[in-house]
C-alpha cells in the first residue's frame, strides 16, 4: 500500500518522543500522574481527567486482540485490529506474521515493530 509523504507527521513537539523511542524498539504510552490512567493515542493533556501532568512510560507490549478484520484486497493483505494492552487501554494497529484465517478475538499477541512511513517504525503485534 502506498501513502503520500507527510513530513510533519512524525516530527512534532507533542509526540516526537514516541517515534524516537519506536525507532529503538520501545512502545511508549502516555500516562497521567493526576488520575493514574494511561491513554491512547498520546496527548499533552490527559483525555480522561484533563490534567496536564502526563508523562511517558514503557508499555509491556503484551495484550489481546479486541477485534480485527482482514483487508482481502489490500496489497499486501492487511489485518487492521484493536489490541487491548495489559495496561488496560486499546490501540489501533496491525496483526502481522500470522495466518489471518486462524486469528480470533481474545487471542494473546505481543509487540513486533514493522517498517512504517518516512523511515519510522510502527508498533504492530503478532500472535504470542
Amino acid at each position: 500500500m502506498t501513502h503520500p509523504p507527510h513530513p510533519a507527521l512524525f516530527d512534532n513537539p507533542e509526540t516526537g518522543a514516541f517515534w524516537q523511542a519506536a525507532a529503538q524498539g520501545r512502545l511508549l504510552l502516555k500516562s497521567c500522574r493526576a488520575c493514574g490512567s494511561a491513554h491512547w493515542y498520546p496527548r499533552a493533556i490527559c483525555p480522561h481527567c484533563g490534567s496536564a501532568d502526563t508523562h511517558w512510560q514503557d508499555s509491556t507490549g503484551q495484550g489481546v486482540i479486541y477485534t480485527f478484520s482482514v483487508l482481502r484486497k489490500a496489497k499486501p493483505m492487511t489485518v487492521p485490529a484493536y489490541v487491548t494492552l495489559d495496561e488496560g487501554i486499546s490501540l489501533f494497529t496491525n496483526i502481522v506474521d500470522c495466518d489471518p484465517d486462524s486469528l480470533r478475538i481474545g487471542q494473546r499477541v505481543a509487540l513486533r515493530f514493522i517498517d512504517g512511513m518516512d523511515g519510522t517504525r510502527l508498533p504492530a503485534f503478532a500472535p504470542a
Partner: protein
Amino acid sequence: MTKHPAHIVGAYEHPTRLASDKTVAQLHAEAAKGALDDAGLTFADVDGFFCGNDMPGIGAFALVDYLNLDLRHIDTTDTGGCSYQIHVAHAVQAIAAGKCDVALVTLGGRPRADGMSTGTAVRPGHPAQPDIPFELPFGNVILGSYAMVAQRHMHDHGTTSEQLAWIKVAASHHAQHNPRALLRDVVTVEDVVNSPLLADPLHRLDCCVITDGGGALVIARPEIARNLARPLVGVRGMGEAMKGQNGGRVDLGYSAIAAAGKRAFDQAGVRPGDIRYASLYDSFTITVLMQIEDLAFCDKGQGGRFVMDGNLISGVGRLPFNTDGGGLCNNHPANRGGMTKIIEAVRQLRGEAHPAVQVPDCTLALASGIGGSLGMRHAGSVVILERE
C-alpha cells in the same frame, strides 16, 4: 398554535447517479432548485443556509456566492454523512430562535465520476489531525473500520453473516420499485454471503453503492409552511452525538446513535414502538444493525435476529426501512447518505413513496445518520418527523 417549531417544506433527491456532465456546484444548485420548487418557494425566500464540506471552498463562501443568496444565518457544521440530520436540527433551532425563516440545506458531489474508491482506499487526511500518525500508516480504510465493529458484534452476540445479509435483501426488495436506483435486482441471503469477501466479515454486497448526485431540503417556520401547498411535515425530535476511542478505553459495542436517539426520542416524547417508518443510515449492513439496537428497536445483541426473515421489508416486517432502496441499493450521493434518508422519510410522511413500499397511514418517521468511521470516530444524528 402549532406543535412543531418548524417544518420540512421542500425535499428533492437529484435524479442522477453518474454526473460526468455536471460540476459539484451545479449539483448543489440543481438540488436546491428542486427542493425550492417542491416547496413553492424561490432562492429569494431563503435567509438561512446549511452545507457541509462536500462543497469545496472554506465553509459556505463559494456556494453562497455561486447561488447569490442573501442570508441572515449560516451554518457549515460538517459531520460527514450525517451532517444533514444535524443541519435540519440546527435549522429548526435557528428558526425557533428567530434567526431565519426559510433554511436551505444542500448536498452535492461526484465521487463515482471521479473514480473514488470510497471504502477501500486509504484517505491521507490532514497532517495536523492528531490521530493520523497513529492510524494512517496501518492502512486504515473505511471498510475495515466498519468490519471491525461487525467482527466484534459477531463475537459478543453470535451475529452471523446471513443475518447481516438480510439487511441488504430488504433494501433490494425496496429498490426493485425505484426506477432510479443504481441496483434494482432483488438479491438473496446467498447472493450476499457468496459475494467476494472484502474485509472480514463484510462482503461486497454488505457495502453501499458509490453514486454521484445530491439532494436538498427546505425548512420553514410554521407561519410560512401553512401557506404552502405541500403536506405539513413537522420536526418533532432531534438528537446529535459524537463517539471516538475514549482515550483508549475502546468499546465498539454501541454507536453515537445510542445517545443521539435517546435525545431525539426524549424531545419528541415518543418511543421506538411508535415509529412507523425508519430511514437508517446504511453505509454498510452492520451500520443498520448497530442503529436498530442503539435506537432500541430491539435489545442490544438481538439485532441479527430482528432483521431476519424480511422484518425490514415494507408490507412484510415490523420495521419498514429505507423504502427507496437506501444507500445499499439506490443512492449514496457524494458518499453522504444522510440527506437521502431524510428525503425518503418526507416522502413516506407525505404519502408519496412508491405505492409498493408506502407505509399505510405513516404519521411518525425517523431518519438517522452516522458520519465518519464507526470503528474509529464518528458522529450520529437522529430526527423524528411527524405528519401534521
